[in-house]
């Protein structure tokens, strides 16, 4: 009995050895004859990331002129017009530079002052239900108004902008939104802003006067949003690779991506778990996550989504407010907003990875200068959250080679000329 068991154990080991040799041989043949092929499920996953899978831009019911070409034309001019700032030197394009995919290459935005947040790209942003890192706006037009009134961004106020519209864009404005009121009775500088004189002047205006100015201000935002809705992602080398994949999981044309880039893509959807949040054709789930990103040295920790929720709910210019064109039922972002829970503190919006190699530095305050540092952050399982908790569980255990391959893959997401 015992001898028989020993013999069986020996035979078992022999079988293991034989099976291992067989598998190694099969692996070697596959390696020599073929680059790694994708499974049916993986092909489906890769196709879900390609630009071909991007749906048409959803309408913005809160903005009547969202898809009006005239509004986009006016918005484009406003976007690049530095007169719309306290010092006459700052336009939206000062931070959202077209040649940098509408980012600025700096850790912090620089307007009239320094903005302690990294400038987000505008390419494809119109698809998101929430805007800015903490989602403090629920439409692109409401978002556009925030920097205009911020003391360190454009540094202006509502009557300042209304006067500028009347002086420089009256015909274009009136063609879209109807006649401008007589603005001569309004102070040059008034608005609910930090500047005490402008705030006092605003407080002295009647609710009807404030409403007349608010309407012009909101319409400016709607024109700016109409322009930004035209900034859509363009195909990258990655998209060409996915288009070349047959149902058999093999590319019909070799060499679109290098072996390292393909290995990086495999890590992206597998071991690296990047696809958990960076999913869909824009490589973002538009949701808010806390991965324990360190604070920028010398700056307070951003409270993230917990602040964004409070701001957007009380924003006069939100989808449910008096300047929105939407029926309340259409304000789905606000109707189903998550307002409590321990996942909100410190959570920031997942950014798109399209063009990511060209849009550093990274994270909400540009903490990481390079993609290699970002990958190291995730490879370590995120950082210690100074507010809220880090959602990530554990280190990814990527080898240095795998980290480099992942980085190589990220470079394939840059749009082709």
């Amino acid at each position, binding site marked *: 009995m015992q001898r028989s068991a020993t013999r069986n154990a020996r035979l*078992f080991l022999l079988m293991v050895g034989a*099976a291992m040799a067989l598998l190694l041989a099969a692996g070697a043949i596959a390696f020599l004859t073929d680059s790694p092929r994708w*499974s049916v499920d993986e092909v489906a996953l890769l196709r879900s990331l390609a630009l071909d899978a991007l749906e048409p831009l959803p309408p913005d019911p809160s903005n009547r002129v969202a898809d009006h070409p005239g509004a986009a034309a006016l918005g484009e001019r406003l976007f690049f017009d530095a007169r719309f700032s306290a010092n006459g030197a700052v336009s939206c394009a000062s931070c959202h530079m077209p040649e940098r995919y509408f980012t600025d290459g700096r850790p912090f935005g620089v307007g009239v002052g320094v903005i302690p947040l990294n400038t987000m790209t505008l390419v494809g942003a119109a698809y998101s239900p929430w805007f800015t890192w903490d989602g403090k706006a629920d439409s692109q037009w409401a978002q556009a108004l925030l920097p205009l009134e911020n003391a360190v961004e454009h540094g202006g106020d509502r009557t300042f902008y209304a006067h500028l519209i009347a002086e420089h864009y009256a015909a274009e404005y009136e063609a879209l939104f109807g006649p401008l009121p007589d603005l001569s009775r309004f102070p040059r500088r008034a608005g609910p802003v930090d500047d005490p004189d402008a705030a006092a002047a605003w407080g002295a205006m009647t609710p009807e006067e404030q409403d007349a100015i608010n309407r012009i201000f909101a319409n400016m935002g709607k024109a700016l949003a109409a322009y930004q809705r035209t900034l859509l992602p363009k195909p990258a080398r990655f998209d060409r690779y996915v288009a070349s994949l047959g149902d058999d999981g093999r590319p019909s044309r070799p060499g679109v991506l290098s072996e390292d880039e393909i290995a990086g893509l495999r890590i992206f*959807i597998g071991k690296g778990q990047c696809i958990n949040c960076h999913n869909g054709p824009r490589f973002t*789930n538009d949701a808010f996550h806390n991965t324990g990103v360190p604070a920028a040295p010398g700056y307070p920790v951003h409270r993230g989504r917990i602040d964004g929720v409070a701001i957007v709910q009380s924003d006069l210019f939100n989808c449910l407010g008096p300047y929105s064109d939407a029926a309340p039922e259409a304000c789905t972002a606000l*109707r189903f907003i998550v307002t409590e829970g321990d*996942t909100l503190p410190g959570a920031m919006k997942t950014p798109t990875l399209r063009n990511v190699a060209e849009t550093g530095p990274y994270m909400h305050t540009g903490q990481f200068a390079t993609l290699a540092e970002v990958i190291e952050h995730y490879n370590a399982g995120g950082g210690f959250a100074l507010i809220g908790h880090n959602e990530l569980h554990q280190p990814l255990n990527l080898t240095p080679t795998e980290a480099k391959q992942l980085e190589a893959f990220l470079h394939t997401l840059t749009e082709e000329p």
Partner: protein
Amino acid sequence: MHRLYPLLILAVLILVGCFSSPASSTTSASAPANLDFSTTRLSEAGRYRVSFTSELNPIAINRLHTWTLHVETPDGAPVENAVIQVHGDMPEHRHGMPTAPKVTQYLGDGNYRVEGMRFQMGGWWEVVFEIEANGEKDRVVFNLLLR
């Protein structure tokens, strides 16, 4: 020799287990193997038989959509006027849904309209409905495996 076949099969299985690519099990790596994915389930204390249909089928990630929830007693009588709370969780991750869905309308015949459903990640989800009708509370959990 035939007595050794089980050993050979075992050896191959062990090796396949060792060699299988982690990428091939991207989204379901650590979900329990015996999860029940039925869309009709008995509530935990057995008070209600509950089923759902999604207007988005198959359910895709990152899409706001609507479900219809049907609630009946175990013997098939529709449950009217229930107060229903809904939330979703990813047991393998430390977060739930990006939205707070709500039952927005009673459609009659034990059917309830659930608006605001949205999932932001592929993988294993639990969608929990807390149901209270005629003073009786119970809960039902549906498992989803999203890609």
